[in-house]
């Protein structure tokens, strides 16, 4: 199956500090790819690279990048990035809506900009979009200001705006962080449904492994500016090849099943810190000399890919 979005060797530097150190990932048509990792791993920066939302002082390079089979230059192809073929759902929905304009106007403006619609036609379509995100009284929400709506309702509006350009890919960065549990569940369900209804694909950034397990088909695990493990959600949760991904999942599942909280010794490196050949080596329970001196190889096993000298394959894990 050919990928919808394919990225290789994406690097981002900000003021001389390496933020992304060669990100490889691939989003397939119709799937939702989860991107997980701890604070500072580079999840948001990866999304921002694709969306052309990097800070001005950032510099970017990559080996290859294609979108729907065409070469695609992140941070230059504004047309593609800015909401037309790729829609964006932000983390803080209220903050990302303009507080001084009514919701309806903000959707209408987006439709006019992206799809060149006339005002009247855009209003019709805006109400349709509000209906498509399961808002039961679209007329009222259309006339509301963001502060008159709940957090969950604002996020529905943001999803409607992300859908306005009829995108092929929807990127959501922590779309439910800060929302209540029952509202989070509704928003996740909605996201999954609209992505399917629009024949789009999704990229869902989160640090919550529960959210990934709930909605993602595959998952990319990031550490220190790289995707170090990628595979189907089932495979990664069953037995992730990479020791970091493997421990992250087992910490979460052991706590969930009432076990003692476990920790990974040490801490996540900051950009600019001196790194071993494998950035995880100083914290890794499987590390040997080669991990410090030689770049870990890319390995493919049963639908997973990982960068590691000593991956946790079944026979290795049972030793």
């Amino acid at each position, binding site marked *: 199956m050919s990928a919808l979005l394919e990225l290789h060797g994406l690097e981002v530097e900000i003021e001389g500090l390496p933020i992304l150190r060669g990100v490889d990932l691939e989003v397939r048509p119709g799937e939702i790819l989860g991107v997980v990792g*701890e*604070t500072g791993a580079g999840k948001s920066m990866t999304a921002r690279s694709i969306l052309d939302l990097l800070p001005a002082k950032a510099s970017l390079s990559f080996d290859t990048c294609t979108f729907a089979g065409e070469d695609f230059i992140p941070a230059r192809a504004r047309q593609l990035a800015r909401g037309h073929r790729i829609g964006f759902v932000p983390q803080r929905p209220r903050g990302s809506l303009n507080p001084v304009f009514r919701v309806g106007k903000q959707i209408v403006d987006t439709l006019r900009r992206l799809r060149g619609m006339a005002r009247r036609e855009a209003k019709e379509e805006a109400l349709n979009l509000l209906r498509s995100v399961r808002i039961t009284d679209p007329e009222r929400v259309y006339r509301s200001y963001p502060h008159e709506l*709940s*957090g*969950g*309702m604002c996020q529905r509006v943001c999803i409607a705006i992300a859908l306005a350009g009829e995108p092929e890919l929807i990127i959501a960065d922590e779309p439910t962080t800060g929302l*209540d*549990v*029952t*509202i*989070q*569940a*509704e928003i*996740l*369900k909605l996201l999954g449904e609209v992505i399917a209804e629009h024949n789009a694909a999704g990229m869902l950034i989160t*640090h*919550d*492994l*529960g*959210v*990934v*397990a*709930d909605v993602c088909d595959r998952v990319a695990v990031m550490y220190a500016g790289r995707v170090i493990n990628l595979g189907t*959600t*089932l495979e990664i*949760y069953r037995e992730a090849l990479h020791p970091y991904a493997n*421990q*992250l*999942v087992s*910490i*979460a*599942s052991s*706590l*969930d099943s*009432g076990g*003692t*909280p*476990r*920790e*990974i010794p040490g*801490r*996540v490196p900051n950009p600019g810190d001196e790194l071993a050949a494998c950035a995880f080596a100083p914290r890794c329970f499987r590390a040997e000399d080669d991990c410090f001196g030689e770049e870990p190889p890319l390995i493919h096993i049963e639908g997973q890919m990982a960068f590691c000298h000593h991956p946790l394959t079944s026979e290795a894990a049972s030793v």
Partner: protein
Amino acid sequence: MTGPSDTLVLRDLTKIFRIKTGSFRHADLRAVDDVSVSITPGRTLAVVGESGSGKTTLARLILRLIDPTGGSIRLEGTDITRMKGAALEDMRGRMQIVFQDPYDSLSPWQTVGRTVAEPLILHENMSMQDATEPVARMLERVGLSPEHARRYPHELSGGQAQRVGIARAMITNPALVVLDEPTSSLDMSVQSQILLLLQSLQEERNISYLFISHDLTVVRYIAHDLAVMYLGKVVESGPAAEVFASPRHPYTEALLKAAPRPDPHYKTDHVHLLGEQPSALDRAPGCPLYGRCPIAEDVCADTPQELVEIEAGHRVACWKRT
């Protein structure tokens, strides 16, 4: 159910905020409504519920940062509901708080040493000089080194900053520590470290925790007892294991079912309640869940149900489930 040895006993605790709704109109918002719970030494009571359910107001009432409208608060047998001035300042050493955002809660221009010493200086009239030794010991106890005393908050990681917050809360050897979402801004591997630390401090010092959280995974692990709040009311309470295993209130049920779990085979129930959480202002006179509850009947609309004990210590306020 409550005894003289309880660390904290709340009886019918109520806080009503007067809200301006127009130029001459006001409405009463019952942020905390008739809450009665207690915590014994060495135990953790978790309070869960969605935003706006009154969890943080409850914490601020207990710490006497705001005055209650009604009801009473007893800390180690002493009624502190209306306590003021020097008496209250002395009492503050017995109850402390750890906040959600570790950086926000530390003053940026103050060294870690000064921050941790502050409760000793304020509530136990110690000098900064005398505090140096206990501060160093406390820093070591929470997994930092005495050298950290000279650092400023921006020189700390999130996990280290939260350890400083914990050191500050523990230094006066309080009977009660309120933990307001203490791990929700931390990464998972750091969150584990903080949970283990809190637990070992509790065992060592027999502290009572009031643990406020919306993260049910963490609560499942750390809580002995659980109180579920909805729009200011405790709708269900009891031993945590029992409530998790057999939730009886439809709201508790919805909360447990909506929480995603790190298991791809687990099916989250995405829509269990109807509609949106209303504001506490336009709440039905009866059950606070009325309007969103999937099993409500007419009686629920206008007659409030009290908490009824359905099994030892397990209490539920619901007409259909008691």
